[in-house]
């Protein structure tokens, strides 16, 4: 049984060698037993890491002149195993606000539903809809109070309120950012590249939807943890509307159709020298 070693702190303990058999227990520095692990300090960290699911997904959202465009993939993975290709990662908080899911599915679903309840209570108590800033702040404060307890949530709250379109990024570390373009998940760097290069504020709804769809497709192409169906939602002044849900495999052949390969080299007769 491994005991915690305080001998370095106790001046009375002998520097080298074990204590005398006769007065061993009396002179030995007080200590307690440790669990049997190789690396006591590291094992606790490893345990938290094991429970904490990596955010294997791609979600994105951006504000443009006609509102907010929200898109996500639909793959759920557990390490190397794809557990589902049809997960709903865009959560409908209420008819004019959407939330995206990245991280723990249960955490996101539960806390978004909880947020929906609190938003409705706010409406009933104050006779007006809650703003996107207010809703995201409520969620951020709740997540902050559970900081360090292993929640894994990387979400974007998108909506349309009195001030127009609003987009906030909220995560389980307690961070909250207001912005115009966000992408969250393991596929987000790939999506950011396509999104940033194609973005203009004055896109039309169709162009913005196509940009969102394309960005999700490119992320699913390169990131193993993203795939399935690319869903695209639009949040306008009258609330959200689902625009499309395309299988990314089909999108691939739509964007890059198979071309008949040209014959590069013909076999020719080699003349005998």
């Amino acid at each position, binding site marked *: 049984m491994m005991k915690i070693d305080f001998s370095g702190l106790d001046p009375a303990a002998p520097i080298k060698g074990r204590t005398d058999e006769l007065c061993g227990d009396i002179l030995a520095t007080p200590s307690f037993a440790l669990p049997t692990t190789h690396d006591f300090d590291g094992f606790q960290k490893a345990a938290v890491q094991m429970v904490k699911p990596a955010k294997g997904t791609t979600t994105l959202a951006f*504000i443009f002149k006609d509102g907010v465009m929200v898109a996500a993939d639909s793959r759920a993975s557990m390490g190397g195993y794809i557990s589902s290709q049809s997960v709903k990662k865009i959560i409908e908080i209420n008819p004019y606000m959407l939330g995206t899911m990245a991280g723990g599915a249960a955490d996101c679903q539960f806390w978004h539903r909880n947020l929906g309840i609190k938003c409705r209570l706010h409406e009933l108590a104050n006779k007006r809809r809650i703003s996107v800033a207010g809703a995201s702040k409520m969620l*951020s*404060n709740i*997540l*902050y109070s559970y*900081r*360090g307890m292993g929640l894994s949530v990387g979400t974007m709250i998108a909506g349309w309120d009195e001030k127009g379109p609003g987009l906030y*990024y909220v*995560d389980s*570390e*307690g*961070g*909250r*950012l207001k*912005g*115009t*373009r*966000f992408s969250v998940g393991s596929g*987000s*760097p790939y999506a*950011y590249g396509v999104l940033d290069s194609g*973005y203009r*504020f004055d896109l039309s709804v169709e162009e913005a939807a196509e940009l969102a769809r394309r960005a999700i497709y490119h992320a699913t192409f390169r990131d193993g943890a993203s795939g399935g169906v690319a869903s695209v939602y639009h949040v306008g002044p009258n609330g959200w509307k689902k625009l499309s849900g395309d299988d990314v495999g089909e999108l691939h052949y739509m964007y890059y159709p198979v071309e008949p390969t040209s014959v590069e080299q013909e076999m020719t007769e080699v003349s005998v020298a």
Partner: protein
Amino acid sequence: MESVFGLVGKDFAIVVADSSAVHSILVHKTNEDKIMVLDSHKLMGASGETGDRAQFTEYIQKNVALYQFRNGIPLTTSATANFTRGELATALRKNPYMVNIILAGYDKETGPSLYYIDYIASLHKLDKAAFGYGSYFALSMMDRHYRKDMTVEEAIELVDKCIVEIRSRLVVAPPNFVIKIVDKDGAREYAWRQSIKDGEVLAA
């Protein structure tokens, strides 16, 4: 790592902070304002974990406002600094806040002052201070060129020198900075130094 630095001039104090919000290798935002205006004559620039930074500085801001409501007079900069340090110290051995703070303020009786408060709750009243990787460059620049009682123009020149140095020498250099000033006329935003304009700026 986020850079925050500040210095005291003739009748003013300046706080400068970078403005990128970063998550491992991704930059989520390049125009995040990390210098909170606590009240009419106080600025608090903070660097550290995103959630802790926003929550802790807002907590201090609301408590400063509460004191004013209750007592009819605003807190002095020194009292605010000591209150902040006390809150960090109390939380330190239970649920520490990972925030480094530069607090600058102007009091009618004592003039401008700057306080350095780090995440393990040490407090120092200083003329110049810096946090983050940028501090490696800003501190020596300020040590070399700082003089007592600089004018606003001279101080901004020094700040720009520091920003240029951080931008050119730091491998993960933040592109944009925000500069805020506090003097007898109050605490306000002085300027932004932007080398990358976020989409937002165009849309507004």
